[in-house]
């Protein structure tokens, strides 16, 4: 069980700062991106009235998620942000699912991936907030209900990044730990496929959906 928590790192220094690249995570992320591009190409390259298999799956994914975004954000915002939301969901699902293949690791198991996606959602949400409400009204919200609540409101906003990214990280990390440990304790007999199906496919899909929904909600609450 010693491989737990061991990460292949590439460390080099630039201008006195230590820069660390987690090689496995980067490789897996690129594999996921590559698979998504291939999937997108298969979906959209031969579009027809009678759709092929990939087109059906793609259309289903896009239309369902688009509807969800539209329900929460309204028509105008959804036109701008729904593509990002759909892409986010597909990326996260594939990230969480890729771990069920032997020798592959979930990129979301490394805190850096969920954290950067969480920060991305946070920045977009606040950009939308400033754009729709105006800078003054946006700032004013922090001083409600009383002016001295400002620091706590600020921390409350920052806690959203923590909660959204640690939720995904903790679930995927915990799932992979359970799979590893229980497989080890039972000498890889019988249990691992079921564990992979539950923690890899089921929990992975749910958590990807939760992450996407929360990003949508953060954006839509800022817009109102």
């Amino acid at each position, binding site marked *: *069980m010693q491989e*737990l*928590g061991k990460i292949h790192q590439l460390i080099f220094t630039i201008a006195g700062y230590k820069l660390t690249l987690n090689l496995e995570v980067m490789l897996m992320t690129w594999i996921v991106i590559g698979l998504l591009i291939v999937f997108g190409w298969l979906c959209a390259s031969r579009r027809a009235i009678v759709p092929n298999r990939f087109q059906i799956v793609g259309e289903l994914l896009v239309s369902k998620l688009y509807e*969800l975004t539209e*329900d929460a954000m309204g028509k105008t915002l959804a036109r701008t942000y729904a593509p990002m939301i759909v892409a986010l969901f597909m990326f996260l699902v594939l990230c969480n699912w890729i771990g069920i293949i032997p020798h592959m690791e979930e990129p979301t198991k490394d805190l850096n991936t969920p954290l950067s996606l969480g920060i991305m959602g946070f920045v977009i949400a606040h950009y939308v907030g400033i754009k729709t409400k105006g800078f003054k009204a946006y700032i004013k919200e922090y001083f409600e209900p009383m002016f001295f609540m400002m620091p*706590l409101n600020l*921390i*409350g906003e920052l*806690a959203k990044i*923590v*909660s959204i990214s*640690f*939720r995904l990280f*903790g*679930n995927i*990390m*915990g*799932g992979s*730990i*359970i799979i590893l*440990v*229980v497989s080890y*304790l039972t000498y890889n007999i019988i249990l691992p496929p079921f564990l992979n199906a*539950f923690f890899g496919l*089921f*929990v992975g899909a*749910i958590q990807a*959906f*939760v992450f996407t*929904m*929360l990003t949508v*909600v953060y954006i839509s*609450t800022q817009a*109102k």
Partner: protein
Amino acid sequence: MIDDIAVWVKVGAYAGGGLAMGLGAIGAAIGEGHTAAQANAAISRNPAISGDILKSMLVGQAIAESASIFALVIAMILLFSSFPATSFVMVWAVFSAGLAMGLGAIGSGVGAGFPAGAACLGMGRQPAMSGRLTTNMLVGSAVCQTPSIFALVIGFILIFTDYATKPLSPTWAAVMGAGLSTGLSAIGSGIGGGFVARASCEGIARNPKAAGPVTNIMLLGQAISQTPAILGLLIGFILIFKGGAASDALAPAMALLAAGICMGIGGIGPGIGEGIASSGGVTWIARNPEEMGVIVRTMLVGMAVAESTAIYAMVISLVLIFVV
């Protein structure tokens, strides 16, 4: 001296393993009992589908039990692994890992029993929706397990971190604080998530047409009511990885321990409160799906206010860790 540490590490591991399984058995048993009681009520109302209800009860109980299975895994590791006897911190770390897992399994076990019970009752009322109810129950109970998974993660990190170079004096308090913060704060979120999932199963049985939005809002409500547990996890991570300067004074160590206790106990109430808030949201969306937008907005604002107490606790914990 080395032998001495090895003996104490064993002592700590046994005590931790016992606590993990003992505390971890509380929640799941309560939740499963609740499920079985509701299943009986459902069967007496609608005996025609007693087979389906029994099946659903067993599936729901199996998921509720997974929290205590996590505790069992941690307990087995604590009892049967050999730990490096390099530092006395290890004694506290293995004890704290057991405590975190035991406490963390309570909430998820109780919480995961609620949706299973409500799904059984709903099947009795609305047999046509039993497939949809089972799916919803599975999703809801699986998300309820998240706080106990956090406790498991912290337990593993506590067990497998190398403490050889860390000073004993503040580090023992930091590892104890990390376990307490994650374990205690998971209780509230687990129970709160269960309330939400129960409300959604009831809602689907009451108004099958609203099943789609009800499941979505349930996931949202559960996810947000897990925030206190996540803040507890964050404080746990900070406590483990920050590392204090060695000092024999008692005050810095106690500050770290108090930070963990503060976040842990401070996270219980908000988790339950947010669960109640969003279970209200889910219930009333099921009754009146047309007003979903307003209900969701009110629910989110209410949850944010209920969460503020968890954020006060986190602020005090951070002050205790970094300032005091």
